[in-house]
Protein backbone atom coordinates (compact mmCIF):
# COMPACT_ATOMS: atom_id res chain seq x y z
CA UNK A 1 0.00 0.00 0.00
CA UNK A 2 2.84 2.38 0.72
CA UNK A 3 4.89 1.12 -2.17
CA UNK A 4 2.74 3.06 -4.65
CA UNK A 5 5.72 5.38 -4.94
CA UNK A 6 8.32 4.03 -7.37
CA UNK A 7 11.14 2.24 -5.62
CA UNK A 8 14.50 3.93 -5.90
CA UNK A 9 17.44 2.06 -7.41
CA UNK A 10 18.91 1.55 -3.98
CA UNK A 11 15.70 0.00 -2.71
CA UNK A 12 15.37 -2.25 -5.75
CA UNK A 13 18.82 -3.66 -5.08
CA UNK A 14 17.91 -4.12 -1.42
CA UNK A 15 14.68 -5.90 -2.36
CA UNK A 16 16.52 -8.19 -4.75
CA UNK A 17 18.86 -9.22 -1.94
CA UNK A 18 15.90 -9.62 0.37
CA UNK A 19 14.18 -12.02 -2.04
CA UNK A 20 17.42 -13.89 -2.47
CA UNK A 21 17.76 -14.25 1.31
CA UNK A 22 14.20 -15.58 1.68
CA UNK A 23 14.69 -17.97 -1.24
CA UNK A 24 17.84 -19.25 0.47
CA UNK A 25 15.92 -19.77 3.72
CA UNK A 26 13.25 -21.67 1.79
CA UNK A 27 15.88 -23.87 0.14
CA UNK A 28 17.71 -24.65 3.40
CA UNK A 29 14.52 -25.75 5.14
CA UNK A 30 12.85 -27.53 2.23
CA UNK A 31 15.82 -29.44 0.81
CA UNK A 32 16.36 -31.92 3.68
CA UNK A 33 12.63 -32.67 3.72
CA UNK A 34 12.45 -33.32 -0.03
CA UNK A 35 15.62 -35.38 0.23
CA UNK A 36 14.11 -37.60 2.93
CA UNK A 37 10.92 -38.16 0.95
CA UNK A 38 12.95 -39.11 -2.12
CA UNK A 39 15.35 -41.28 -0.10
CA UNK A 40 12.46 -43.19 1.45
CA UNK A 41 11.43 -44.55 -1.96
CA UNK A 42 14.85 -44.84 -3.57
CA UNK A 43 17.17 -47.79 -3.76
CA UNK A 44 19.48 -47.48 -0.73
CA UNK A 45 22.46 -48.14 -3.03
CA UNK A 46 21.97 -44.79 -4.76
CA UNK A 47 21.24 -42.97 -1.51
CA UNK A 48 24.37 -44.25 0.20
CA UNK A 49 26.60 -43.40 -2.74
CA UNK A 50 25.15 -39.94 -3.12
CA UNK A 51 23.80 -40.56 -6.64
CA UNK A 52 20.29 -39.83 -5.38
CA UNK A 53 20.44 -36.17 -4.43
CA UNK A 54 17.03 -34.72 -5.25
CA UNK A 55 14.54 -36.94 -7.07
CA UNK A 56 13.99 -40.64 -6.31
CA UNK A 57 16.28 -43.05 -8.11
CA UNK A 58 15.69 -46.78 -8.45
CA UNK A 59 12.21 -46.61 -6.95
CA UNK A 60 11.37 -49.18 -4.28
CA UNK A 61 8.65 -49.38 -1.65
CA UNK A 62 10.63 -51.91 0.36
CA UNK A 63 11.21 -49.44 3.20
CA UNK A 64 7.52 -48.75 3.69
CA UNK A 65 6.66 -52.44 3.40
CA UNK A 66 9.09 -53.25 6.18
CA UNK A 67 7.82 -50.40 8.35
CA UNK A 68 4.21 -51.50 7.98
CA UNK A 69 5.13 -55.12 8.63
CA UNK A 70 6.64 -54.13 11.99
CA UNK A 71 4.04 -54.66 14.75
CA UNK A 72 5.85 -52.15 16.99
CA UNK A 73 4.94 -49.33 14.59
CA UNK A 74 1.26 -50.28 14.71
CA UNK A 75 1.09 -50.56 18.48
CA UNK A 76 3.11 -47.35 18.82
CA UNK A 77 0.73 -45.56 16.50
CA UNK A 78 -2.29 -46.85 18.40
CA UNK A 79 -0.84 -45.84 21.77
CA UNK A 80 0.14 -42.40 20.54
CA UNK A 81 -3.35 -41.75 19.18
CA UNK A 82 -4.88 -42.91 22.46
CA UNK A 83 -2.53 -40.78 24.61
CA UNK A 84 -2.96 -37.76 22.34
CA UNK A 85 -6.77 -37.90 22.30
CA UNK A 86 -7.26 -38.61 26.02
CA UNK A 87 -4.44 -36.27 27.02
CA UNK A 88 -5.73 -33.37 24.95
CA UNK A 89 -9.24 -33.82 26.29
CA UNK A 90 -7.96 -33.71 29.87
CA UNK A 91 -5.89 -30.61 29.01
CA UNK A 92 -8.90 -28.82 27.56
CA UNK A 93 -11.21 -29.82 30.42
CA UNK A 94 -8.74 -28.37 32.90
CA UNK A 95 -7.42 -25.32 31.03
CA UNK A 96 -10.53 -23.76 29.48
CA UNK A 97 -12.71 -23.41 32.64
CA UNK A 98 -9.76 -22.16 34.71
CA UNK A 99 -8.79 -19.63 32.06
CA UNK A 100 -12.35 -18.36 31.94
CA UNK A 101 -12.59 -18.03 35.73
CA UNK A 102 -9.27 -16.14 35.77
CA UNK A 103 -10.48 -13.81 33.03
CA UNK A 104 -13.39 -12.61 35.20
CA UNK A 105 -12.60 -9.33 36.94
CA UNK A 106 -15.14 -10.03 39.69
CA UNK A 107 -13.26 -13.15 40.85
CA UNK A 108 -11.94 -12.37 44.33
CA UNK A 109 -8.31 -13.32 44.81
CA UNK A 110 -7.69 -13.34 41.07
CA UNK A 111 -4.17 -11.91 41.41
CA UNK A 112 -3.31 -14.41 44.12
CA UNK A 113 -4.40 -17.27 41.88
CA UNK A 114 -2.42 -15.85 38.97
CA UNK A 115 0.67 -15.61 41.19
CA UNK A 116 0.07 -19.20 42.33
CA UNK A 117 0.16 -20.35 38.69
CA UNK A 118 2.94 -18.05 37.45
CA UNK A 119 5.42 -19.09 40.15
CA UNK A 120 5.61 -22.54 38.61
CA UNK A 121 6.95 -21.04 35.36
CA UNK A 122 10.13 -20.03 37.16
CA UNK A 123 10.50 -22.58 39.95
CA UNK A 124 9.91 -26.28 39.86
CA UNK A 125 10.76 -29.22 42.05
CA UNK A 126 12.89 -30.64 39.28
CA UNK A 127 13.14 -34.01 37.65
CA UNK A 128 13.77 -36.30 40.59
CA UNK A 129 11.14 -35.03 43.10
CA UNK A 130 8.54 -35.08 40.29
CA UNK A 131 9.51 -38.62 39.40
CA UNK A 132 9.30 -39.72 43.04
CA UNK A 133 5.82 -38.15 43.32
CA UNK A 134 4.51 -39.88 40.19
CA UNK A 135 5.99 -43.12 41.47
CA UNK A 136 4.46 -42.56 44.91
CA UNK A 137 1.03 -42.02 43.37
CA UNK A 138 1.35 -45.40 41.66
CA UNK A 139 1.15 -43.94 38.18
CA UNK A 140 4.36 -45.50 36.87
CA UNK A 141 3.79 -47.65 33.81
CA UNK A 142 0.33 -46.24 33.21
CA UNK A 143 -0.75 -43.75 30.59
CA UNK A 144 -1.83 -41.32 33.32
CA UNK A 145 1.83 -40.67 34.11
CA UNK A 146 2.05 -39.04 30.67
CA UNK A 147 -1.20 -37.10 30.99
CA UNK A 148 -1.77 -35.89 34.55
CA UNK A 149 1.55 -34.19 35.44
CA UNK A 150 1.25 -31.87 32.43
CA UNK A 151 -2.51 -31.39 32.62
CA UNK A 152 -2.20 -27.61 32.92
CA UNK A 153 0.34 -25.71 30.88
CA UNK A 154 0.69 -22.25 32.43
CA UNK A 155 1.65 -20.73 29.11
CA UNK A 156 -1.51 -22.05 27.44
CA UNK A 157 -3.59 -21.00 30.43
CA UNK A 158 -2.38 -17.41 30.04
CA UNK A 159 -2.92 -17.41 26.27
CA UNK A 160 -6.45 -18.68 26.83
CA UNK A 161 -7.20 -16.17 29.58
CA UNK A 162 -5.99 -13.30 27.38
CA UNK A 163 -8.34 -14.51 24.65
CA UNK A 164 -11.35 -14.56 27.00
CA UNK A 165 -10.45 -11.11 28.27
CA UNK A 166 -10.10 -9.49 24.88
CA UNK A 167 -12.46 -11.37 22.56
CA UNK A 168 -15.54 -11.84 24.78
CA UNK A 169 -17.43 -8.57 25.38
CA UNK A 170 -18.10 -7.87 29.05
CA UNK A 171 -21.66 -6.80 28.26
CA UNK A 172 -22.40 -10.44 27.45
CA UNK A 173 -21.66 -11.50 31.01
CA UNK A 174 -23.61 -8.57 32.45
CA UNK A 175 -26.64 -9.31 30.29
CA UNK A 176 -26.52 -12.98 31.21
CA UNK A 177 -26.34 -12.14 34.91
CA UNK A 178 -29.27 -9.77 34.54
CA UNK A 179 -31.31 -12.65 33.12
CA UNK A 180 -30.38 -14.78 36.12
CA UNK A 181 -28.02 -17.05 34.20
CA UNK A 182 -25.56 -18.96 36.43
CA UNK A 183 -21.81 -18.92 35.79
CA UNK A 184 -21.91 -22.59 34.72
CA UNK A 185 -24.61 -21.96 32.14
CA UNK A 186 -22.85 -18.82 30.97
CA UNK A 187 -19.58 -20.70 30.47
CA UNK A 188 -20.93 -23.87 28.87
CA UNK A 189 -23.75 -22.46 26.73
CA UNK A 190 -22.55 -18.96 25.82
CA UNK A 191 -18.80 -18.56 26.24
CA UNK A 192 -17.62 -21.94 24.89
CA UNK A 193 -19.66 -21.80 21.64
CA UNK A 194 -18.18 -18.34 21.00
CA UNK A 195 -14.63 -19.58 21.57
CA UNK A 196 -14.15 -22.25 18.92
CA UNK A 197 -10.99 -20.61 17.61
CA UNK A 198 -9.21 -20.62 20.97
CA UNK A 199 -10.38 -24.19 21.61
CA UNK A 200 -8.81 -25.17 18.28
CA UNK A 201 -5.56 -23.37 19.16
CA UNK A 202 -5.39 -25.08 22.55
CA UNK A 203 -6.22 -28.51 21.14
CA UNK A 204 -3.47 -28.11 18.54
CA UNK A 205 -0.82 -26.91 20.98
CA UNK A 206 -1.55 -29.64 23.48
CA UNK A 207 -2.12 -32.29 20.80
CA UNK A 208 1.23 -31.71 19.09
CA UNK A 209 2.89 -31.81 22.50
CA UNK A 210 1.43 -35.24 23.25
CA UNK A 211 2.18 -36.54 19.76
CA UNK A 212 5.86 -35.55 19.95
CA UNK A 213 6.51 -36.37 23.60
CA UNK A 214 9.09 -39.06 24.25
CA UNK A 215 10.81 -38.15 27.50
CA UNK A 216 8.05 -38.82 30.03
CA UNK A 217 7.19 -42.04 28.21
CA UNK A 218 10.83 -43.03 28.45
CA UNK A 219 11.08 -42.47 32.19
CA UNK A 220 7.61 -43.66 33.24
CA UNK A 221 6.74 -46.58 30.95
CA UNK A 222 8.52 -49.88 31.28
CA UNK A 223 6.23 -52.09 29.24
CA UNK A 224 6.99 -52.23 25.49
CA UNK A 225 3.33 -52.74 24.66
CA UNK A 226 2.53 -49.31 26.07
CA UNK A 227 5.28 -47.44 24.20
CA UNK A 228 4.08 -44.51 22.11
CA UNK A 229 5.34 -44.03 18.57
CA UNK A 230 8.16 -41.66 19.58
CA UNK A 231 9.78 -44.30 21.80
CA UNK A 232 9.58 -46.86 19.02
CA UNK A 233 11.17 -44.28 16.73
CA UNK A 234 13.91 -43.78 19.28
CA UNK A 235 14.66 -47.50 19.17
CA UNK A 236 14.80 -47.49 15.38
CA UNK A 237 16.41 -44.10 14.66
CA UNK A 238 18.67 -43.43 17.60
CA UNK A 239 19.46 -46.76 19.23
CA UNK A 240 19.43 -48.38 15.78
CA UNK A 241 17.62 -51.51 16.88
CA UNK A 242 15.94 -53.52 14.19
CA UNK A 243 13.16 -55.92 15.01
CA UNK A 244 13.03 -59.31 13.33
CA UNK A 245 10.35 -58.01 11.00
CA UNK A 246 12.13 -54.91 9.77
CA UNK A 247 15.59 -56.39 9.72
CA UNK A 248 14.83 -59.85 8.35
CA UNK A 249 16.09 -60.97 4.97
CA UNK A 250 14.03 -63.28 2.89
CA UNK A 251 15.70 -64.75 -0.14
CA UNK A 252 13.77 -62.65 -2.65
CA UNK A 253 14.91 -59.31 -1.27
CA UNK A 254 18.36 -60.40 -0.20
CA UNK A 255 19.62 -60.07 -3.74
CA UNK A 256 18.03 -56.69 -4.30
CA UNK A 257 19.37 -55.19 -1.13
CA UNK A 258 23.06 -55.33 -0.51
CA UNK A 259 23.61 -55.10 3.18
CA UNK A 260 21.93 -54.86 6.49
CA UNK A 261 23.10 -51.27 6.85
CA UNK A 262 21.39 -50.29 3.63
CA UNK A 263 18.10 -51.78 4.73
CA UNK A 264 18.45 -49.99 8.04
CA UNK A 265 18.93 -46.65 6.27
CA UNK A 266 15.94 -47.22 4.00
CA UNK A 267 13.74 -48.14 6.96
CA UNK A 268 14.85 -45.00 8.78
CA UNK A 269 13.77 -42.66 6.02
CA UNK A 270 10.47 -44.48 5.63
CA UNK A 271 9.78 -44.42 9.36
CA UNK A 272 10.53 -40.69 9.60
CA UNK A 273 8.03 -39.98 6.82
CA UNK A 274 5.39 -42.31 8.26
CA UNK A 275 5.59 -40.79 11.74
CA UNK A 276 5.82 -37.14 10.77
CA UNK A 277 3.34 -37.17 7.89
CA UNK A 278 0.14 -36.77 9.94
CA UNK A 279 1.44 -33.64 11.65
CA UNK A 280 3.04 -32.09 8.56
CA UNK A 281 0.05 -32.94 6.34
CA UNK A 282 -2.56 -31.22 8.48
CA UNK A 283 -0.31 -28.36 9.49
CA UNK A 284 -0.71 -26.03 6.44
CA UNK A 285 -4.49 -26.09 6.93
CA UNK A 286 -4.22 -25.29 10.62
CA UNK A 287 -1.28 -22.88 10.38
CA UNK A 288 -3.65 -19.93 10.83
CA UNK A 289 -4.68 -21.22 14.27
CA UNK A 290 -1.13 -21.90 15.44
CA UNK A 291 0.00 -18.43 14.44
CA UNK A 292 -3.05 -16.94 16.12
CA UNK A 293 -2.15 -18.75 19.33
CA UNK A 294 1.40 -17.39 19.40
CA UNK A 295 0.09 -13.89 18.64
CA UNK A 296 -2.47 -13.91 21.46
CA UNK A 297 0.31 -15.08 23.76
CA UNK A 298 2.66 -12.31 22.68
CA UNK A 299 0.15 -9.57 23.51
CA UNK A 300 0.58 -10.25 27.17
CA UNK A 301 3.80 -12.26 27.25
Amino acid at each position, binding site marked *: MITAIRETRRDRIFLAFNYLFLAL*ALLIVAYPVIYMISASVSSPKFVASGEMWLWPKGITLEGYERVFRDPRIWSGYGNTILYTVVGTMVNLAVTLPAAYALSRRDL*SGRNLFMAFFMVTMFFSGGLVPTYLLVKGLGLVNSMWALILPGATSIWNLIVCRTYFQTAIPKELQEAAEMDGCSDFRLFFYIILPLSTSIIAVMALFYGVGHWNNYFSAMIYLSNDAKYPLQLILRQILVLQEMSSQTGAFDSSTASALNSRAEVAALVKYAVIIVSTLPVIAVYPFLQRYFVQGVMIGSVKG
Partner: protein
Amino acid sequence: MQKSTLTYDQSHLVLKPAARRRTGKKILRNWQLYILLAPAFLSIFIFSYIPMYGVQIAFKNFIPVDGISGSAWVGFAHFERFFNSYYFWDLLWNTLSISLYGLAIGFPLPIILALAFNEVKDGMFKRTVQTVTYAPHFISMVVMAGMIITFLSPSSGMIVHLIEALGFHAPDFLTDPRWFKTVYVLSDVWQGTGWGTIIYLAALTGVDPGLHEAAILDGASRLQRIRYINIPAILPTITILLILNMGSLLGVGFEKILLLQNPLNMESSDVISTFVYRSGLLDAQYSFSTAVGLFNSVVNALLLVMVNQIVRRTSENSLW
Protein backbone atom coordinates in the same frame (compact mmCIF):
# COMPACT_ATOMS: atom_id res chain seq x y z
CA MET B 1 -4.90 -2.13 33.92
CA GLN B 2 -2.37 -3.99 36.03
CA LYS B 3 -2.25 -1.02 38.40
CA SER B 4 -6.00 -0.76 38.99
CA THR B 5 -6.38 -4.42 39.93
CA LEU B 6 -3.43 -4.09 42.25
CA THR B 7 -4.92 -1.24 44.27
CA TYR B 8 -8.17 -3.13 44.34
CA ASP B 9 -6.42 -6.08 45.93
CA GLN B 10 -4.73 -3.97 48.54
CA SER B 11 -8.13 -2.85 49.79
CA HIS B 12 -8.38 -6.32 51.33
CA LEU B 13 -5.42 -5.64 53.53
CA VAL B 14 -7.13 -2.70 55.18
CA LEU B 15 -9.92 -5.09 56.19
CA LYS B 16 -12.75 -2.84 57.21
CA PRO B 17 -15.54 -5.09 58.46
CA ALA B 18 -17.94 -3.86 55.77
CA ALA B 19 -15.40 -4.47 53.02
CA ARG B 20 -14.72 -7.94 54.38
CA ARG B 21 -18.39 -8.75 54.31
CA ARG B 22 -18.58 -7.52 50.71
CA THR B 23 -15.71 -9.78 49.66
CA GLY B 24 -17.30 -12.71 51.42
CA LYS B 25 -20.54 -12.08 49.58
CA LYS B 26 -18.71 -11.85 46.27
CA ILE B 27 -17.02 -15.19 46.84
CA LEU B 28 -20.35 -16.74 47.69
CA ARG B 29 -22.04 -15.28 44.64
CA ASN B 30 -19.25 -16.51 42.35
CA TRP B 31 -18.80 -19.96 43.88
CA GLN B 32 -19.26 -21.59 40.49
CA LEU B 33 -16.19 -19.76 39.18
CA TYR B 34 -14.11 -21.39 41.91
CA ILE B 35 -15.40 -24.79 40.85
CA LEU B 36 -14.30 -24.00 37.28
CA LEU B 37 -10.88 -23.05 38.62
CA ALA B 38 -10.51 -26.08 40.90
CA PRO B 39 -9.18 -28.77 38.50
CA ALA B 40 -6.34 -26.58 37.25
CA PHE B 41 -5.58 -25.44 40.80
CA LEU B 42 -5.41 -29.03 42.03
CA SER B 43 -3.30 -30.29 39.15
CA ILE B 44 -0.74 -27.51 39.66
CA PHE B 45 -0.79 -27.97 43.41
CA ILE B 46 -0.17 -31.71 43.16
CA PHE B 47 2.29 -31.85 40.28
CA SER B 48 4.18 -28.58 40.78
CA TYR B 49 3.98 -27.62 44.44
CA ILE B 50 4.34 -31.05 46.06
CA PRO B 51 7.60 -31.67 44.12
CA MET B 52 8.79 -28.27 45.43
CA TYR B 53 8.25 -29.63 48.95
CA GLY B 54 10.16 -32.72 47.87
CA VAL B 55 13.20 -30.60 47.00
CA GLN B 56 14.23 -30.85 50.65
CA ILE B 57 15.70 -34.28 49.92
CA ALA B 58 18.63 -32.31 48.43
CA PHE B 59 19.60 -31.61 52.06
CA LYS B 60 18.82 -35.11 53.29
CA ASN B 61 19.94 -38.64 52.73
CA PHE B 62 16.75 -39.81 51.09
CA ILE B 63 15.92 -43.44 51.64
CA PRO B 64 12.68 -44.46 49.90
CA VAL B 65 11.39 -46.70 52.72
CA ASP B 66 11.84 -43.90 55.29
CA GLY B 67 10.00 -41.36 53.15
CA ILE B 68 10.84 -37.70 52.65
CA SER B 69 10.23 -36.56 56.23
CA GLY B 70 11.78 -39.66 57.82
CA SER B 71 15.15 -39.39 56.09
CA ALA B 72 18.08 -37.82 57.97
CA TRP B 73 19.30 -34.28 57.33
CA VAL B 74 22.82 -33.96 55.93
CA GLY B 75 23.01 -30.21 55.27
CA PHE B 76 25.02 -29.20 52.23
CA ALA B 77 26.91 -32.48 51.89
CA HIS B 78 25.49 -33.29 48.44
CA PHE B 79 26.25 -29.81 47.17
CA GLU B 80 29.81 -30.02 48.45
CA ARG B 81 30.28 -33.37 46.77
CA PHE B 82 29.04 -31.90 43.50
CA PHE B 83 31.17 -28.73 43.64
CA ASN B 84 34.27 -30.73 44.51
CA SER B 85 33.77 -33.41 41.88
CA TYR B 86 36.13 -33.48 38.92
CA TYR B 87 33.25 -33.16 36.43
CA PHE B 88 31.69 -30.02 37.99
CA TRP B 89 33.57 -27.48 35.85
CA ASP B 90 33.12 -29.56 32.69
CA LEU B 91 29.36 -29.76 33.22
CA LEU B 92 29.08 -26.06 33.97
CA TRP B 93 31.20 -25.11 30.97
CA ASN B 94 29.28 -27.37 28.57
CA THR B 95 25.93 -26.11 29.80
CA LEU B 96 26.91 -22.45 29.57
CA SER B 97 28.77 -22.68 26.29
CA ILE B 98 25.96 -24.55 24.51
CA SER B 99 23.45 -21.95 25.76
CA LEU B 100 25.55 -18.92 24.82
CA TYR B 101 26.50 -20.41 21.45
CA GLY B 102 22.81 -21.08 20.77
CA LEU B 103 21.85 -17.59 21.90
CA ALA B 104 24.52 -15.89 19.78
CA ILE B 105 23.36 -17.62 16.60
CA GLY B 106 19.77 -18.58 17.30
CA PHE B 107 18.58 -15.29 18.80
CA PRO B 108 19.33 -12.75 16.03
CA LEU B 109 18.28 -14.98 13.11
CA PRO B 110 14.50 -14.92 13.71
CA ILE B 111 14.70 -11.13 14.03
CA ILE B 112 16.51 -10.78 10.70
CA LEU B 113 14.13 -13.22 9.00
CA ALA B 114 11.07 -11.42 10.40
CA LEU B 115 12.38 -8.06 9.15
CA ALA B 116 12.98 -9.65 5.74
CA PHE B 117 9.43 -11.11 5.63
CA ASN B 118 8.08 -7.69 6.52
CA GLU B 119 9.62 -6.09 3.41
CA VAL B 120 7.84 -8.47 1.05
CA LYS B 121 4.29 -7.90 -0.16
CA ASP B 122 1.72 -10.51 0.87
CA GLY B 123 1.39 -13.12 -1.83
CA MET B 124 2.17 -16.66 -2.90
CA PHE B 125 5.92 -16.36 -2.43
CA LYS B 126 5.75 -14.93 1.07
CA ARG B 127 3.09 -17.43 2.15
CA THR B 128 5.08 -20.36 0.80
CA VAL B 129 8.31 -19.35 2.52
CA GLN B 130 6.46 -18.78 5.78
CA THR B 131 4.58 -22.08 5.69
CA VAL B 132 7.74 -24.04 4.85
CA THR B 133 9.99 -22.36 7.41
CA TYR B 134 7.42 -22.72 10.21
CA ALA B 135 6.93 -26.45 9.55
CA PRO B 136 10.10 -27.90 11.19
CA HIS B 137 8.81 -26.62 14.54
CA PHE B 138 6.40 -29.56 14.50
CA ILE B 139 9.02 -32.23 13.90
CA SER B 140 9.51 -34.23 17.08
CA MET B 141 12.79 -34.29 18.96
CA VAL B 142 13.27 -37.99 18.22
CA VAL B 143 12.76 -37.54 14.49
CA MET B 144 15.05 -34.52 14.54
CA ALA B 145 17.76 -36.57 16.24
CA GLY B 146 17.15 -39.35 13.72
CA MET B 147 17.58 -36.88 10.85
CA ILE B 148 20.80 -35.51 12.34
CA ILE B 149 22.24 -38.99 12.82
CA THR B 150 21.29 -40.09 9.30
CA PHE B 151 22.42 -36.91 7.52
CA LEU B 152 25.76 -36.87 9.31
CA SER B 153 26.46 -40.56 8.93
CA PRO B 154 30.11 -40.74 7.79
CA SER B 155 29.46 -43.33 5.09
CA SER B 156 26.18 -42.24 3.54
CA GLY B 157 24.96 -39.00 5.09
CA MET B 158 23.50 -36.28 2.88
CA ILE B 159 25.45 -33.46 4.50
CA VAL B 160 28.66 -35.47 4.37
CA HIS B 161 28.12 -36.03 0.62
CA LEU B 162 27.46 -32.32 0.19
CA ILE B 163 30.68 -31.31 1.94
CA GLU B 164 32.68 -33.83 -0.02
CA ALA B 165 31.11 -32.66 -3.30
CA LEU B 166 32.41 -29.19 -2.48
CA GLY B 167 35.88 -30.67 -2.19
CA PHE B 168 36.31 -30.67 1.58
CA HIS B 169 36.94 -33.50 3.98
CA ALA B 170 33.96 -34.00 6.28
CA PRO B 171 34.79 -34.36 10.00
CA ASP B 172 33.19 -37.01 12.21
CA PHE B 173 30.35 -34.77 13.30
CA LEU B 174 28.71 -37.24 15.67
CA THR B 175 31.72 -38.68 17.43
CA ASP B 176 34.17 -35.77 17.45
CA PRO B 177 33.52 -33.78 20.67
CA ARG B 178 34.62 -30.57 18.97
CA TRP B 179 31.64 -30.74 16.61
CA PHE B 180 28.87 -31.61 19.04
CA LYS B 181 27.93 -28.05 20.02
CA THR B 182 27.84 -26.83 16.44
CA VAL B 183 25.64 -29.73 15.39
CA TYR B 184 23.33 -29.07 18.31
CA VAL B 185 23.06 -25.31 17.72
CA LEU B 186 22.72 -25.39 13.93
CA SER B 187 20.02 -28.07 14.01
CA ASP B 188 18.13 -25.92 16.52
CA VAL B 189 18.44 -22.98 14.15
CA TRP B 190 17.10 -25.08 11.27
CA GLN B 191 14.15 -26.19 13.34
CA GLY B 192 13.26 -23.02 15.21
CA THR B 193 14.14 -19.91 13.21
CA GLY B 194 10.97 -19.75 11.09
CA TRP B 195 8.64 -20.30 14.03
CA GLY B 196 10.58 -17.72 16.04
CA THR B 197 9.65 -14.99 13.55
CA ILE B 198 5.93 -15.08 14.42
CA ILE B 199 6.24 -13.11 17.62
CA TYR B 200 8.28 -10.38 15.87
CA LEU B 201 5.90 -10.27 12.91
CA ALA B 202 3.06 -9.71 15.37
CA ALA B 203 4.97 -6.76 16.83
CA LEU B 204 5.70 -5.41 13.33
CA THR B 205 2.01 -5.33 12.39
CA GLY B 206 1.61 -2.73 15.14
CA VAL B 207 3.86 -0.21 13.34
CA ASP B 208 1.95 2.90 12.27
CA PRO B 209 2.01 3.03 8.42
CA GLY B 210 2.01 6.83 8.70
CA LEU B 211 5.59 6.66 9.99
CA HIS B 212 6.70 4.83 6.85
CA GLU B 213 4.82 7.22 4.57
CA ALA B 214 6.43 10.22 6.20
CA ALA B 215 9.84 8.58 6.00
CA ILE B 216 9.37 7.77 2.30
CA LEU B 217 8.46 11.41 1.59
CA ASP B 218 11.65 12.44 3.33
CA GLY B 219 13.56 10.13 1.01
CA ALA B 220 14.44 7.38 3.51
CA SER B 221 15.60 4.13 1.94
CA ARG B 222 14.15 0.77 2.97
CA LEU B 223 17.26 -0.02 4.95
CA GLN B 224 16.97 3.28 6.82
CA ARG B 225 13.31 2.66 7.53
CA ILE B 226 14.15 -0.77 8.96
CA ARG B 227 16.89 0.76 11.07
CA TYR B 228 14.92 3.73 12.41
CA ILE B 229 11.28 2.52 12.38
CA ASN B 230 10.98 -1.27 12.41
CA ILE B 231 13.80 -2.18 14.77
CA PRO B 232 12.77 0.36 17.44
CA ALA B 233 9.21 -0.97 17.09
CA ILE B 234 10.20 -4.54 17.98
CA LEU B 235 12.83 -3.59 20.55
CA PRO B 236 10.52 -4.18 23.56
CA THR B 237 9.77 -7.71 22.27
CA ILE B 238 13.47 -8.36 21.67
CA THR B 239 14.34 -7.20 25.20
CA ILE B 240 11.71 -9.34 26.91
CA LEU B 241 12.71 -12.45 24.95
CA LEU B 242 16.37 -11.81 25.69
CA ILE B 243 15.70 -11.57 29.42
CA LEU B 244 13.72 -14.81 29.35
CA ASN B 245 16.51 -16.52 27.40
CA MET B 246 19.16 -15.35 29.84
CA GLY B 247 17.04 -16.77 32.64
CA SER B 248 17.34 -20.22 31.13
CA LEU B 249 21.07 -20.19 30.35
CA LEU B 250 21.57 -23.27 32.49
CA GLY B 251 18.33 -24.82 31.29
CA VAL B 252 19.61 -26.30 28.04
CA GLY B 253 16.95 -28.49 26.45
CA PHE B 254 18.25 -31.86 27.46
CA GLU B 255 15.76 -33.94 25.48
CA LYS B 256 17.71 -33.49 22.26
CA ILE B 257 21.13 -33.75 23.92
CA LEU B 258 20.11 -37.03 25.52
CA LEU B 259 19.28 -38.43 22.08
CA LEU B 260 22.51 -37.26 20.45
CA GLN B 261 24.82 -38.23 23.30
CA ASN B 262 27.24 -41.11 22.80
CA PRO B 263 30.30 -42.23 24.75
CA LEU B 264 32.61 -40.59 22.21
CA ASN B 265 31.18 -37.06 22.33
CA MET B 266 30.40 -37.14 26.05
CA GLU B 267 33.18 -34.76 27.03
CA SER B 268 31.43 -31.89 25.27
CA SER B 269 27.81 -33.11 25.31
CA ASP B 270 27.27 -33.79 29.00
CA VAL B 271 25.33 -30.92 30.58
CA ILE B 272 23.88 -30.46 34.07
CA SER B 273 20.39 -31.65 33.12
CA THR B 274 21.56 -34.83 31.40
CA PHE B 275 23.76 -35.49 34.40
CA VAL B 276 20.77 -35.11 36.73
CA TYR B 277 18.82 -37.58 34.61
CA ARG B 278 21.64 -40.12 34.63
CA SER B 279 22.57 -39.96 38.28
CA GLY B 280 19.00 -39.51 39.50
CA LEU B 281 16.86 -41.86 37.47
CA LEU B 282 19.38 -44.37 36.13
CA ASP B 283 21.68 -44.62 39.15
CA ALA B 284 18.94 -43.83 41.72
CA GLN B 285 21.09 -41.28 43.59
CA TYR B 286 17.95 -39.36 44.43
CA SER B 287 19.27 -36.85 46.95
CA PHE B 288 22.48 -36.07 45.12
CA SER B 289 20.82 -35.42 41.76
CA THR B 290 18.08 -33.34 43.39
CA ALA B 291 20.83 -31.17 44.85
CA VAL B 292 22.41 -30.77 41.41
CA GLY B 293 19.03 -29.90 39.91
CA LEU B 294 18.35 -27.41 42.68
CA PHE B 295 21.70 -25.74 42.09
CA ASN B 296 20.71 -25.45 38.43
CA SER B 297 17.34 -23.80 39.09
CA VAL B 298 18.74 -21.42 41.72
CA VAL B 299 21.39 -20.19 39.26
CA ASN B 300 18.67 -19.79 36.61
CA ALA B 301 16.49 -17.71 38.91
CA LEU B 302 19.46 -15.54 39.95
CA LEU B 303 20.42 -14.94 36.32
CA LEU B 304 16.85 -13.96 35.45
CA VAL B 305 16.63 -11.46 38.30
CA MET B 306 20.09 -10.06 37.55
CA VAL B 307 19.52 -9.53 33.83
CA ASN B 308 16.11 -8.04 34.53
CA GLN B 309 17.69 -5.58 36.98
CA ILE B 310 20.33 -4.54 34.47
CA VAL B 311 17.73 -4.06 31.75
CA ARG B 312 15.48 -2.10 34.07
CA ARG B 313 18.30 0.31 34.84
CA THR B 314 19.01 0.95 31.18
CA SER B 315 15.57 0.89 29.53
CA GLU B 316 11.93 0.74 30.47
CA ASN B 317 11.29 -2.72 28.99
CA SER B 318 11.73 -5.15 31.84
CA LEU B 319 9.77 -8.17 32.93
CA TRP B 320 8.75 -6.61 36.24
